[in-house]
Every structure is written in C-alpha cells, then in structure tokens.
C-alpha cells in the first residue's frame, strides 16, 4: 500500500464525514428537504470501493454522497443538489438520493432498494458488447439481498457472464429490521456463492475494502464474470433523518464506533508511516474549508426557474418523422 493511497483515503473519508455532518446541520435548519440518508460510519466501504474499483460505471443506492465525492464530483455541486438548487448535479430535480453524472460514470443514486442491480448488469452487457472489458460496480445494502431485484440480477450476471462487482454493504439494518430477522442466515455472501466467487470482509478497514475491490476488478475484467463482496460495516446515524434509530442499543453503537473507520485508518496509517500528523491536520482544515465553501455555494445558488418543471421529461430535439 502506497503513501499516496493512504493519503487519498484519509482525505476522501474525512471529506465525506465532514460533508455529511454539515449536511445534517443544514437539514435541521430546513435548507435541505425530503429524505437525507447519512453514511457516517460507512466511509471505508464507499471510499475504498471507489478507489479500488477505478475506471468504469458505478451504480449506487440512495446513501451515496460519499461515493459521489470519492468519485470526484465536486462537493459544491453535490451540496447544491441537496439544497435543490439549479447548480446541483441533477439541476435540483433529483436531490440527495439521485446524484448522477455520466462524466464520472456515476449512474445514481437509486431510491428503490435493489432496482439499480439489473441496470449494472445491463450496462456491463453493453460494455462487453462494444468490446470494452471494463468492469461495473453495483453497491447495495443488506436489505436489498432479500429482494427479487438482487436474485434476478445475480442470476442474469452469472448466466450472461458479465463483469459486475456486487458490493453488499451489510450495516446490519434495513431501516429498523435487523439482518437476521429478514434472512434465514446473516452471512449474506452465501446468497451469491453458488453464482460467483463471494467473500466477506471487514468494511471498517479501508485497506481491506480497497484491496478486495481491486482484486475483484481484476477478476471480473480478466474472467468476464461477476464477483460478490460482502463488507461488514455500520451506520452511526439512523436510517434517515426521519428515523429515531432507537432499535439499536447504546452499547451496540459504542462497539461500532470503537471501530471507527477514520480513526482506524489514522492509527494504521501513522503506525505504518503512511500518514503524518501534519498531513492529518492539513486535511482536517482543508475539508472544513471545502465543505463551508460548498454550503456557501449551495446557499447562494439560484432556485431552478419554473420553466425547468417541463424540461428533461422527454428529448428536446426529437426526431420529427420517419420514412
């Protein structure tokens, strides 16, 4: 593991955490509406996966701010989307759950659990069809592995032999239902192991996530077949801002927080000489500044003009006639 990777991990994980904590504040102030799903505690999975994956199409669930930031989408445009402003990545029409940018091969932000899994399979099919062997990444939560979308998608990916990495973020709760109350077994990688190679890893360790996803990427691209990873992680916050989260004990939360992925990275990085106190301090200050600027930008951005209501439903320049 190189120093520069460790530094990138730290920068992006910290950026994600500060961004989301700030988004939470803005939500409380009423500047962000609707649902806001925070990924605090899960940053190692999001950042490790995006960096380990590298080039290719990414399809994510609705808890996707950190994925988007790790992918390179600018914090100010992401924050502006949360604020519903015209300068947002989706012109304020998608919101927190629907960040899209084909420039970064980033295809949502999907708010129907598991619905993006067949999209990833189709995209991988299309890439393969055009002679492009690049893999596709689809990430989803533990709850999605109980859905028809999941079983249909792994079945099709394995039958068609397309290079998709299925990354399951097992944070143990589908809103308030613990994983073992909705599935006959809690080791979710077992659901895929007859279809494709499937592993379970520590999702609180960014190095492990990075290495596993990197290896999976090499596998799917060399073999042209899918791969399954279950990353065990934890969300510190409730499911969304409208959830109380009282189905989890303070003790359970403390155990999870003791394994905090950012603290974990800091400790390991310093021990191994991959990070320095100076760098950590530099990043801590820098991300505060970036996030403050993002909030300023979002606050000062204009609302979408009313005529935007009718734009983007259909193509603006449609073909007229055919013969």
């Amino acid at each position, binding site marked *: 593991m190189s120093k520069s990777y460790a530094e990138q991990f730290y920068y992006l994980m910290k950026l994600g955490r500060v961004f989301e904590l700030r988004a939470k504040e803005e939500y409380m102030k009423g500047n962000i509406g609707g649902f806001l799903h925070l990924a605090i505690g899960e940053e190692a999975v999001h950042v490790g996966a995006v960096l380990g994956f590298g080039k290719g*199409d990414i*399809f994510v669930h609705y808890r996707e701010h950190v994925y988007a930031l790790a992918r390179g989408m600018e914090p100010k445009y992401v924050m502006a989307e949360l604020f519903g402003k015209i300068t*947002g*990545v*989706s*012109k*304020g*029409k*998608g919101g927190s759950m*629907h960040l*899209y*940018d*084909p420039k970064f091969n980033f*295809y*949502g*932000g*999907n708010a*129907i659990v598991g*619905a993006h*899994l*067949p*999209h*990833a*399979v*189709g*995209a*991988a*099919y*299309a*890439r393969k*069809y*055009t002679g492009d062997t690049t893999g596709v990444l689809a990430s989803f939560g533990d709850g999605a592995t109980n859905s*028809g*979308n999941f079983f*249909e*998608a792994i*079945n*099709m990916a394995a*039958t*068609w032999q397309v290079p998709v990495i299925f990354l399951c973020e097992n944070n143990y709760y589908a809103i308030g239902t613990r994983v073992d109350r909705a599935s006959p077994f809690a080791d979710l990688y077992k659901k895929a192991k007859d279809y494709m190679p499937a592993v379970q890893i520590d999702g609180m360790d960014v190095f492990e996530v990075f290495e596993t996803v990197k290896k999976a990427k090499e596998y799917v691209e060399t073999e042209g077949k899918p791969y399954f990873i279950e990353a065990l992680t934890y969300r510190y916050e409730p499911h969304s801002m409208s959830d109380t989260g009282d189905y989890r004990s303070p003790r359970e939360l403390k155990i999870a927080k003791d394994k905090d992925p950012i603290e974990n990275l800091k400790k390991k990085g310093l021990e191994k000489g991959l990070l320095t106190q100076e760098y950590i301090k530099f990043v801590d200050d820098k991300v505060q500044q970036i996030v403050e600027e993002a909030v300023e930008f979002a606050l000062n951005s204009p609302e979408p003009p009313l005529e935007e209501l009718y*734009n*983007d*439903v*259909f*193509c603006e320049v*449609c*073909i*007229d*006639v*055919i*013969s």
Partner: protein
Amino acid sequence: MLYREALNKAMDEMMEKDPSVVILGEDVGFYGGNYKVTEGLYAKYGRKRVIDTPIAENSIVGTAIGMAIGGLRPIAEIMTVNFSLLAMDQIVNQLAKIRYMSGGKIVLPVVIRMPQGVAKQLAAQHSQSLERFFASVPGLRVFVASDATTAYYGLKYAITTDDPVIFLEHTLLYPEKMEIEEEKNFSPYRARIKKEGEGITIVSYLKMLHDTLKVVPIIEKELNTTCEVIDLCSINPLDISTIANSVKKTKRLVVITEEPKTGSYANEIINKVLEEVFYELDAPPLKIGSEDVPTPYNRTLELASIPTPEKIASLIIKWGRKHGI
C-alpha cells in the same frame, strides 16, 4: 404480409442499419419468439444481439435500462402485457423517471414491445389491456400499433427516438394479413383518419379499430349518416387537435377501446375532447369498452365481456337513435 411480419421487418431494418440496436426477452432468440415476431433475427444477428433472458420481467426492463446507459438501443419484448405488471417498478420508477431525476443527463432510448388484449379463452391473467396504466405515467411515450403500417413505421420511430416508448400490439392481430402502405413522412404523433365522414366521429385503435370498421357500413345505413373513423398511433401524447376538429364537424363522439370501462383510456380521450369542444356537441359522448369483470374463460361469457363488431354496431345505433340521429 402479416401484421407480425411488419414488426419483424421494422426491427430487422433498424438492426441492419444500427449495430447498437439489440433485442432482449423471453424466448425471443433461439426459440423465435412466442408469437414469432422476432423469427429469423437470432439466425441473422446472433445471440449477442437477440438476447434470451430468464423469466424475470422486472430485470428484462432493468437490464434494458442498463444497456441504454451503456450506449445500446434495446428493444425489450415482454411476452404479453399481463407480465409487464411484474416490471412496473422498472417501467414506472426507473425508465420513466431517470432522465428527469438526472436533470436530463441520462437518456434512455428503450422500447418495450408487448401484445395485449383478449384473445380466445386464455382466462383473466392472459387477457388484459393495460394502456391506461402506461399512458398516465409522465416520462413514457405510449404507442399502439393498429395495422401493418403503424406497426412498421411506429416501431421504427420508437427505436429511433431517444425517448422511452411503450409499444403495444394486439395478440389477435399478429396473424392478420395486411400490407404496409408506403409513407414518406410518418409521425406517430399524428392521429390517422381511416375513413372520412360527416355525422359521427369514432376514435379507436388496435383490434377494436378493425371491429369497428367492419360494422361502419351497417351503422351508416341504419342511422342514415356517415362516420369518421380515427385511429391513434400514439396515445401519450394524444393528437387531440385531429380528434377535436373532427368532432367540431360531426358534433358527435364515440370512443371504443378494449379496456374495462372504469378508468379506461377512453375516459381520457373523452375528457380532453370535452375540454376542447363541449359546446359543439349535439349528443353526450359514447364510450364502448369491456365489462368491469376479470375476463372469463368460458367462450360465451368471454364474448359477453368484450366489445364485438355486433355489439359495437348495436350500441352506436341505439345511442344514435336516442340522441336524434
């Protein structure tokens, strides 16, 4: 030529022209299609372009969306419209909304083809018309192909446009003999006047259009008037101006669809006409549709549940006499 061959010809020509056009669905490839619409295409274009899928309607549409994101122009065949209900999340929540939610950044040129309607004794789960569901979803174009001409040009248009299109066919039309009438500038968004007339405007599409045309001479003779019959190719958007102009002339409107009457798409057509030309009407509009029951298996009951040519004629004649034609 058969109706289904017109559909096949449209796909064949588009696939030959554009290598990004692919077909996917249950039995569409090796088997040749359950209604033979894709017959011969597997042999010609191979399994990469005519893709056999598992029985997983939701993910047939879902993977088609992904294929479009990856740069292809997929035509997904759902074996019959009845099974599209399993794909409603992908159709309604995904296909119709992603362009808008992404601020226009993601374009999904996906066609979903499927036959609908009551065939013969297939019972309730295989005998439905569902256009009202699709036509009421913002973000979807909804086409209905009543004959070989609209099947051929309409499908070519659907494959070419960047908008998602729900393309509805009728099971009973597949083996019907028809010819493609050559057209230079076909637009699915123009309603088609199949027959001109002065006394009654009749709007219909798919099989009901043919059933209506069969009995128009009887209606005209009995009521001593002439009927203007309008076929629709697109039901969303609806070419309301062609219909409204006709009604301004005839002063009377009949809408015939195969859906059960409650909540049918005919209601939408009538409502739009009323908004435009209410004061021009000499009679209340007449809606003809199926009875509000699940389609029965028994043939006698089945026929009693749907509009037939005889019923269409007698209902219009009765209505015409009641309202002074």
